[in-house]
């Protein structure tokens, strides 16, 4: 064997009593931010505090779909940059993130959906992101397994085809970023829970953890689905976030069948084939807020019903595994990235719902810039928390969404 195995993200280190920056949550966003803080801003005295193990949260549960065909001009450039970063990071981290830029098809099942797609496509094209509206027959040419007949619940009218998107190996991103962060001096403390954030005179002074207290002038909460609860309990800041369970599942592994990521809003269902050959498919979120990651009988059945309709050959394939994770949803389906507002030195990066994987690389880069300089980069300005106070939703979703009964 020509490799000697050595710890990928450094040896276990002792928890120091003070750090220049503390990041709560060893997920995608925490790791990416730490990596860029250390690498680009020379802020290497950084601790990542992770309650379980890195990748325990959404980072290890997502279906790894990446794309840059969001709806608004605030989002597209951010996601475009994130998309462009996968090959760069693969090289920088010297870790194969296995970016499969196979392209995404977003199926449209009505004239209204086609119209909505046109707007999204125009937005992408306006920002130099490749995306096209194709008809059902063209979609079938790309995805031969597609059922484009009229006699299914939601007949397919066409699709939004976005060639630069695809899938990345989610675990590789976690481990690769951890490797990179550790290499630049970041301490990753697993099995350590953050229990309180200390402030004094409007400034951050430290973080309390299950392994002791840390003094620090800067803290980032990027605890995925747990962020909203944490920020409220630790600092009393209420976020307009509803946390819902989102489930995903895989079939038994198959030889290549799907060469693209295919998704359908009407069916609440998407499918793509992993490099291992499993068809990974996800459902929409549960309709009621909860903090559990428990599965429901309904969703796997729903998923089978949906796929039976639009990818009928899969009826002969077996589901092997379903799991759940948390989706922290904001009212406008766009995240909250903010800092230095309520407390000097307090940063948050949350509300990523089910789209926090595809964004993590670029977000890490800009959050690091934010934390290192104290000033919000232009790219992140639209994502501030105050937009909700001002009733200015971002428009990332056109439809009315209701995750909680009150809206």
């Amino acid at each position, binding site marked *: 064997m020509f*490799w000697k*195995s*050595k*710890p*990928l993200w*450094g040896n276990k280190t002792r928890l120091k009593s003070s750090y220049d920056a503390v990041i709560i949550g060893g997920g995608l966003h925490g790791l990416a931010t730490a990596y860029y803080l250390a690498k680009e801003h020379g802020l290497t005295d950084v601790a990542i505090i992770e309650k379980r*193990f890195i*990748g325990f949260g959404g980072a290890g549960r997502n279906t790894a779909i990446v794309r840059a065909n969001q709806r608004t*001009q605030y989002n597209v450039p951010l996601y475009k940059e994130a998309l462009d970063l996968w*090959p760069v990071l693969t*090289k920088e981290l010297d*870790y*194969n993130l296995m970016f499969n830029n196979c392209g995404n098809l977003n199926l449209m099942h009505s004239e209204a959906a086609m119209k909505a*797609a*046109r*707007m*999204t*496509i*125009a937005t992408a*094209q*306006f920002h130099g992101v490749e995306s096209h*509206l194709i008809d059902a027959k063209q979609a079938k040419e790309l995805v*031969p*397994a597609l059922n484009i007949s009229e006699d299914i619940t939601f007949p397919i009218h066409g699709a939004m085809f976005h060639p630069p998107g695809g899938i990345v190996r989610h675990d*590789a991103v976690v*481990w690769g970023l951890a490797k990179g962060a550790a290499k630049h001096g970041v301490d990753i403390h697993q099995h350590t829970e953050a229990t309180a954030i200390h402030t004094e005179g409007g400034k951050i002074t430290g973080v309390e953890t299950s392994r002791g207290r840390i003094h620090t002038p800067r803290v980032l909460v990027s605890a995925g689905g747990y962020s909203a609860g944490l920020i409220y309990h630790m600092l009393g800041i209420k976020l307009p976030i509803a946390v819902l369970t989102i489930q995903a599942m895989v079939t*038994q*592994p*198959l*030889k*290549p*069948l799907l060469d693209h990521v295919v998704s359908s809003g009407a069916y609440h269902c998407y499918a793509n*084939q992993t*490099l291992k*050959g499993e068809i990974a498919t996800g459902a929409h979120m549960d309709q009621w807020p909860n903090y559990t990651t428990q*599965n429901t*009988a309904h969703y*796997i*059945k729903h998923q089978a*019903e949906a*796929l*039976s309709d639009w990818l*009928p*050959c*899969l*009826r*002969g*394939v*077996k*589901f092997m*595994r*379903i799991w759940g994770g948390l989706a922290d949803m904001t009212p*406008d389906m766009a995240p909250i990235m903010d800092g230095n507002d309520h407390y000097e030195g307090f940063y948050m990066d949350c509300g990523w719902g089910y789209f926090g994987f595809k964004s993590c690389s670029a977000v890490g880069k800009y959050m690091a810039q934010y934390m290192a300089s104290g000033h919000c980069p232009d790219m992140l300005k639209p994502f501030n928390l105050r937009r909700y106070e001002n*009733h200015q939703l971002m*428009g990332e979703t*056109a*439809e*009315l969404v209701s995750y909680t009964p*009150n*809206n």
Partner: protein
Amino acid sequence: MNRLNQLPTLRITPSEKLSLNYRGKTVQGVAGDTVATALFANGVRVFARSLKYHRPRGLYSLDGECSNTCMDVNGVPNVRTENTLLKDGMVVREQNVKGSADRDWLAFIDKLDWMMPAGFYYKTMHKPAAIWPVAMKQIRKAAGIGVISADYQMKGQYDEMFIKAEVTVIGGGAAGMTAALAAAESGQRVVLLESRPHLGGCFDYRVSTTAEGTPLYERARDLAEKVKLTGNIRVFKHTSMVGAYNNNLITAFQVGKASDTFTERYIEIRSDSVVVATGCIERPLIFDHNERPGVMQVGCAHRMARTYGLLPGSEAVFSVGHDLGLEAAVDLFDLGLKINCVADIREDGQNPELMLALAERKIPVLKGWVAAKAHGCKKVEKVTLSTVEGTVKRQFPCDLLVASAGLTPVTGPFILAQAKMGYDSHTGYFLPTELPEKMFPAGRITGVNHPGAIEASGRLAGLKAAAAAGADVGKTVAEAEKAASVLPGPERGCKLVTAPVKGRKSFICFDEDTTIKNIKQAIEMGFDVPELIKRFTSAGTGPGQGGIPGHNLPLFVAKYTASISTPVPTTVRPPLVPTFLATYAGYNHHMFKHTPLHDSQIADGGIFRNIGVWQRARYFSADFDCREEILNVRNNVGMLDGSTLGKFRIHGPDALKALQRVYVSDMSKVKEGRIKYSAMCNDDGCVIDDGVVVKLGENDYYFTTSTGRAGQTVEWIRYHTRFDGWDFSLVNLTDAMGVINISGPNARKVLSKVVDIDLSSEAFPFSGYREFLIKDAVFVRAMRLGFVGELSYELHVPSSYTQAVWDLLKEAGAEFGIRNFGVEAQNVLRMEKCHVILGSESEQRTNLLDLGLGFLWDRKKADAKTVGAVALRQAEKDAGRLKLVGIRMEDDDRPARDGALIVDNNVRGYVATMRKSFTTGQAVGMALVESQLADIGTRIEIFEDECNGVRLYARVVATPFYDPKGERMKS
């Protein structure tokens, strides 16, 4: 191969021959065979090749814990042939091979394992970047096991069933049957699930006896008979439990027999309590080449002979860690198997009777010994046994190596039910440290193995479950507890983790070809939690659902990383058994609502679309531009099925207060005989609904909502009045009433032929509301509205009469050439009038003011605490919002497409709806634009998808585009 055709334990019918096609040849099996046992009977030993290394794989467990016998059956990939019952005419193919399973020319990959340490993908194939796309293609081709063709059509009938029971018993072995019988004593409804095609579990094939001297297989058959005769036990055989959810919702699926009307059936059971009597599988023994064809687990070898009449080899070596292994050795010897040696991992603690039986048969026994290496490639030829410490070694020839480290309980149901699992140092099992609510273990899963103890624990669990489900079981629980306590308890389990090997070819997971060495590599790289190692090495993520590595992986990690003192189990996820999508999908109904006029709309040539929960006629014109439909409404008269509209009645002392809360207008100003158009906003001031309200009497109102909101409206009003304690009743009449919209200059003439009230504009003016009878029988609520911009009546008619009224109007309109119009025509008609459709001219963030509907808002009813009012006050001062405006293209022949962007250097808005108006000849539409662009006359630049840099231009114009004074609709 000769079958042992006379055994009383057989589950096959040797006289009933079935045939199957295997690699193009027809071979014979018998009824009761699984596909794999039939193939085995025909000499097949290599069933498949492994995923990564293409190692030959054979029968190992018979219960589908690994993909060793996964094959393609009738075009369905990854079928676990070892527990799939043979049906006549099956076509069976091998998977993941180049050539055949026997001669696979990819077998050389097995020699390249040194190139593929744990996680090697992550470290390679990205330097230089250009090789990755090429490598990826190869990886994709190599990965995956079975093939499904893109046009595959799954055959068969897939049923579903939803049942209620007091007690569900999972597992139909002796413990499960006893539990079911005990639970049924108090008359409760019991459901018993068994994954094999027959009840009996581990008693089914054993000739050893109960304390009373009854052979276990007979005892099992007696119990099964009792179960069958108990009316309140419902037995589902060949049914695998796959999921356990909150409040003991159990899901399972049943495989149909040839005589059943279903191929498979999805079953959901809502029961009060659950008994888990799933027994044990075997813990695989880890040694070098531990998965060669010819290496089998104890139960597999034993059942091959006893259940299927197939002696699994001719010359055997046993390497076991449990008395069941010794029992099998004795029995198989008696059935004709030559046994060269039995190595028992345990130094002591064996059942003396079994030791005596082995001695009587002159079978050499080595205590404290274990298999260290299997030799041979496509079949075992000999085995190296070693002392457990690895100090002494001996070799024995054999063509069958029966290998098992011990037992491992099937605790999946507990894990799915959120039980916390912990390591039990006596049994060596992972067991629930705390039982989930109303869930009880029975039988071998608790660690007992004594036949009497198995039954006693079943009885106890059955009674507890019945009690938990509310039965009065009196003192029986205490008695059962006492009876169980005098019998042998949980047995000490064998703790050996691996044979003394380095582990380069010792497989901990067969499906993923993960070796002990790979696990060590992962641990050295810092992956110290079993769950992470699983992800990094893929161990346990294959089609076997972790059945092979589930127990061994945590044990090995604990042993290898001194830092973890007690083993930590990995999670198990549903479905516990891989389940067809077809089975989960069941009937897969289309679930759309039809209006009362559905059939006649079809008969009239309507082209339907799904719109929300409804199917509606969108077009009556094949070209979809709806020109004729539109012009007919403008110039003559048309009829639209508007039945999908939300319709509600609210009444009671506080009805008005509730309306004031949710509607932005002052609803106290609604006058009898008049309709009022208003809107509802959410807390952000964004418009969520619009519709009309009619006052029927004091605190009695009838109102409509948009089609899409009908489902949420009751909850919306209830939610926003939840702290007020108001007294009102709210009824959703959406399905109870059909709606006919009759519009166009001739509408009055048509309507007057069927009603006998005064329809003149003075008697029934625009915005008026009237109630009347048609033909002295049908009660109609009629409103004069102007959504499409013409003289228009909306008739709300009880659903059962809607078709009759429609027909009357159609007949009356015949002389005018009345015709249907659909949703798209309505869309254009109303667009010309600049009447908005929510979701079309608005999006989530669009508020009342943005839409130009601010006039609806009554700011003087602060006491009403109208939802959204606070936000609207704030938004009034906000200049940075999108506004809805009318626009007209500079080139009337080139309307922009819906969804086109309005831009300069940035995106400034978008076109909501635009059409070339047949009525005015202009290309006009509505757009949401930033307020700086909203002034009339502003020139706007339009960016369409695929425009290749060519922009279109339009100007903001006054609205509406058609009949600005509204004379036509008021006429």
